[in-house]
């Protein structure tokens, strides 16, 4: 565990669609050591709690994160302008672990869960298949980024306004049918993760899930962000999303 609390300038701020913000900060302390699937805790003015946001990408001194406006904290953050100084804690958590990045891997993302997958799929280059699910076409984002990373990107929307009409897990089944998959990495809403875990189990593919939970400290001290996990001996205990996760092996998660 090695994290810092630091202030850093916002160097790029884009709004790819309404209520979605794509920020890049210059933050060598965090960017240089961040691994895929880790997250940061961002201070939002005087709000009592920092907000957890996934690291979307880290290159050199630059750290990128993308967030949707949901409430007071993300609304405050959305108002920051290039040149403003942000107060960030990170990198935090255990991210994805990769066995062999030369093997085909599938990345399954839903909604705001797609962002950490960019940093994660990059090492796999053209071996990555990225399956993205959204509610509708107007919510689609980041396609070009995944494509630029070399991934085979496929799209599903709940209402059929873009890509496959249906669930992103339909795409996962189809992809598993197509050929070998060495690992599945997923982030998104709980039902999607649960379905992904079931498919992975069915196909006996190692699967890692990035989970969300409400957090206070973000570093393992307050025990706020509990997630029930099952141990090999069958016992169940609470692990913590911020320090034991956010990425868990799909088989240990108790739903």
């Amino acid at each position, binding site marked *: 565990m090695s994290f810092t609390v630091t202030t850093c300038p916002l160097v790029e701020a884009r709004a790819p669609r309404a209520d979605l913000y794509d920020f890049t900060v210059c933050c060598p302390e965090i960017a240089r050591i961040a691994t895929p699937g880790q997250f940061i805790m961002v201070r939002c003015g005087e709000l*009592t*709690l920092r907000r957890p946001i996934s690291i979307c990408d880290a290159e050199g001194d630059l750290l990128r994160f993308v967030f949707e406006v949901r409430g007071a904290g993300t609304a405050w953050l959305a108002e920051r302008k290039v040149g403003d100084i942000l107060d960030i804690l990170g990198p935090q958590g255990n991210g994805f672990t990769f066995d062999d990045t030369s093997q085909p891997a599938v990345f399954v993302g839903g909604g705001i869960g797609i962002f950490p997958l960019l940093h994660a799929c990059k090492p796999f280059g053209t071996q990555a298949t990225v399956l993205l699910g959204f509610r509708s076409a107007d919510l689609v984002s980041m396609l070009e980024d995944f494509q630029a990373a070399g991934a085979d990107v496929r799209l599903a929307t709940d209402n059929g306004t873009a890509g496959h009409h249906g669930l992103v897990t339909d795409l996962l089944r189809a992809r598993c049918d197509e050929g070998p998959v060495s690992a599945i990495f997923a982030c998104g809403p709980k039902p999607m993760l649960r379905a992904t875990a079931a498919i992975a189990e069915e196909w006996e593919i190692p699967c890692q899930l990035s989970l969300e939970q*409400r957090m206070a*400290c973000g570093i393992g001290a*307050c*025990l*706020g962000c509990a997630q029930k996990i099952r141990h090999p001996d069958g016992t169940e205990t*609470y692990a913590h999303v911020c320090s034991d996760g956010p990425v868990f092996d799909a088989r240990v998660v108790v739903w």
Partner: protein
Amino acid sequence: MVVPNLAVNIAGVTLANPVVTASGTFGFGREYGTLYSLAELGAIAVKGLTLKERPGNAPPRVAETPAGMLNSVGLQNPGVDAFIREELPWLKEQGAVVIANIAGSTIEDYCAMAECLSDTAVDMIELNISCPNVKEGGVAFGTSCDSVAAITAAVRGYCRKPLIVKLSPNVTDIAEIAVTAVDNGADALSLINTLLGMRVDIQTRRPILANNVGGLSGPAVRPIAVRMVWQVHQRVNVPIIGMGGVATWEDAVEMMLAGANAIAVGTALYLDPYAPLKIKQGVADYLDRSGMADVSELVGAVQVY
């Protein structure tokens, strides 16, 4: 120019400075200990311990509120033995003054923990009879004078360390409870624990916390904490560790003026992990500017109308 003295004496134990970290907010110090030396702190009150390991409550366990937060962690902890074995030696190596916060569902539990902790290197024992989140958190003990008397006297019999009793703010008359605790053997008092609160998510129409209710802490409760510290200070002659919403050195000075000998920082850690160190420095600078030689000069120095 003399450097002001920051050290305080709480029931015979010397704290290098009056800044403590509040029980349950700072774990066993390992996480924040990667940011700064734990010896910088006056003391560390560790996560509430129970006799046996406790899994804690179902998530979600935390929710933000205006200028505060709710928690319903529910005393997740590895049990007092694991603490003594795995956490305490490390904490002492760091040079920390350690306050063991204990909770239970029976007086016997409390006594057993006090007894076995008395044989360890912990510096003080904090009787948590005020955790609002679990039946076993002792809040039932903390809300009536009779039960406060009974539990304090019983634990006193087993406790060979300075005994702090931690008071609940969810009571009609905290001063009466404080007096009872002192009369029955408390060497010091700490207050306040959290106020029972609730948030409902209007989209799902469910409570945000899976425990339905949780404990409110943070700056929102500071005026209540300051008032309670002031009321208790007028009635007892033992040291008080004041807490509840202390986030800045100004807040710490306010709490001490109201009657706290030391202060604890909890919720404020989450916004600024360095808050305890900044508070320590800020208090030192304030003393210096005010020409005060000793931090104890602040204690209870509020001049009321």
